[in-house]
């Protein structure tokens, strides 16, 4: 069995070598594909904090993905139409500046995570899945009916937002931003898993009764995980909207929630690079099989079936075996 550390390095290598190769060969489309994979990976890394560490099966993470997307859409829309976002009590105008958009996406996702988390964490199991799904659907239908921002048609942003010092319209520049954010979040995540919080959360997933008997509050630990999870997926949503220069209610749909979860399951629930592998495989299949047939999801379904039936730890589990302790 390969050590997980080596596999992670290889995966990271793929995310570095392919775009460089594509840049040299002048294949911008490949870079865009890799950007898509990196962003999906980020969204799924977010979900993995709730799902893998906290054991929270959220079928509503599209909520955060969409909030991130609309954070970008709304701020950029007001900037490109030169209309204020809000005039009272203070004047707030739109923005085309990515860092500002990201901060906004993170804060909005955190607020949503707090509210949704407080309500959903009163339940568990199937009810938790249903409540998170219901919140996702609420946001979905709300965005459809929100005609100020395009309603069902969504919002088009004509020029990609800017980042100081980079030309974000150049695919490799935008890719560099996305992969840097992904790496930063993965690094934080790797620390989080081993931190006191990570250990307590891990236990709260497995034996909440034990966590209570040592005087800690398992629900509060899970709530914190849910919020963190939401902010990461929200950030990914903002990046995704900027990649497409377009945001629509689809980002809030339950299919989006499902896909994010599929990334995590394919790669390996609770494994640091699980979501990254899952997103990479998804984008590769989407690209190759999608070119062959419109029904490529059938093959994705077969892959998922195989992994769930035969490899409980996802692709990473199949290659590296059970996660090691104290690593």
């Amino acid at each position, binding site marked *: 069995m390969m050590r997980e550390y080596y596999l992670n390095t290889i995966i990271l290598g793929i995310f570095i070598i392919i775009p460089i190769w594509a840049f040299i060969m002048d294949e911008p489309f490949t870079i865009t594909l890799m950007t898509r994979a990196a962003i999906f990976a980020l969204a799924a890394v977010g979900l993995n904090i709730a799902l893998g560490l906290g054991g929270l099966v959220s079928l509503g993470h599209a909520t955060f993905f969409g909030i991130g997307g609309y954070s970008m859409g709304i701020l950029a829309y007001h900037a490109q139409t030169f209309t204020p976002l809000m005039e009272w009590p203070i004047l707030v105008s739109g923005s085309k500046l990515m860092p500002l958009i990201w901060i906004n996406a993170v804060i909005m996702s955190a607020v949503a995570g707090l509210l949704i988390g407080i309500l959903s964490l009163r339940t568990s199991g199937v009810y938790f899945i249903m409540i998170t799904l219901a919140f996702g659907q609420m946001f979905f239908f709300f965005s459809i009916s929100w005609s100020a921002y395009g309603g069902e048609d969504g919002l088009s942003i004509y020029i990609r937002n800017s980042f100081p010092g980079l030309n974000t319209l150049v695919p490799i520049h935008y890719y560099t931003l996305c992969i840097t954010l992904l790496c930063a979040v993965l690094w*934080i995540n790797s*620390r*989080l898993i*081993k*931190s*006191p*919080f*990570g*250990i*307590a959360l*891990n*236990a709260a997933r*497995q*034996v909440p*009764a*034990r*966590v*209570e*008997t*040592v*005087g*800690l*509050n398992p629900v509060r*630990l899970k709530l*914190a995980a849910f919020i963190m999870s939401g902010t990461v997926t929200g950030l990914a949503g903002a990046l995704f909207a900027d990649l497409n220069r377009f945001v629509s209610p689809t980002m809030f749909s339950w299919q989006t929630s499902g896909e994010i979860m599929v990334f995590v399951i394919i790669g390996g629930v609770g494994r640091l690079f699980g979501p990254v592998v899952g997103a990479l495989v998804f984008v590769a299949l989407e690209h190759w099989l999608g070119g062959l047939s419109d029904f490529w999801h059938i093959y994705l379904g077969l892959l998922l079936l195989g992994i769930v039936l035969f490899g409980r730890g996802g692709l990473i589990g199949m290659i590296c075996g059970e996660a090691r*302790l*104290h690593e």
Partner: protein
Amino acid sequence: MNNIVLSTKGLTKHFGALSASKNITLDLRVGEIHAIIGPNGAGKSTFISQVCGSIKPDNGTVHFLGRDVTQETVRDRAQAGLARSFQISALAMEDSVLQNALLGALGASRNPWRFLSPALGNKMLVEQAKHALDRVGLSDHANKRASELSHGQRRQLEVGIALTLSPKAFVMDEPMAGLGFEGSMKMTSFLNRLRQEAPILLVEHDMEAVFALADRISVLVYGEVIATGTVEEIRADPYVRDAYLGEEL
């Protein structure tokens, strides 16, 4: 009375038509081991759960360190210094033995809100956890997964986690079950010393251990305390012999 650490008064609990606890009044005093014995299904675990707060009594009160804690949560009582070990091991099975002990140390520190520094790098937490593992004889297994432990070792880890809390009272539900002869002997002498740190409310099936350890014994049958007394008194009580101890003594 100042030397009473933990007490229950008229604790009553029904599960439907079944009375699992009937008017249970007993106390735990400084420096003592108070054993609760009784046949399977007598309501020992249910009683322990009410003491620790995971089951709310229908009636009656629980006092801990002079305070009425009947309405308080498991967490409140744990923070006040009540440490419980479960009859059916409640361990994070996927985690290492050391991580399980660390959880206890974290609980004692009351601050799990540290996100970026590795727990294993925190000397104080690790020392505390390792010390507890050492005391229950699990040092050599610190890096094993809890799921790899034998049944008896899991019981030891349960007690180890309780130790990390430096509690004011221990509540242990059958800590010797599955330990085997030698393990029981070791645990018996360990608990014997432990009572100096904090008194122990001990539910135990192993009569030899109970008679060796207990300062007082309460006999629970069908949810009711039918007798409380010293080892000699309980051994001599004809009613107890009849109802529970039977011919084995």
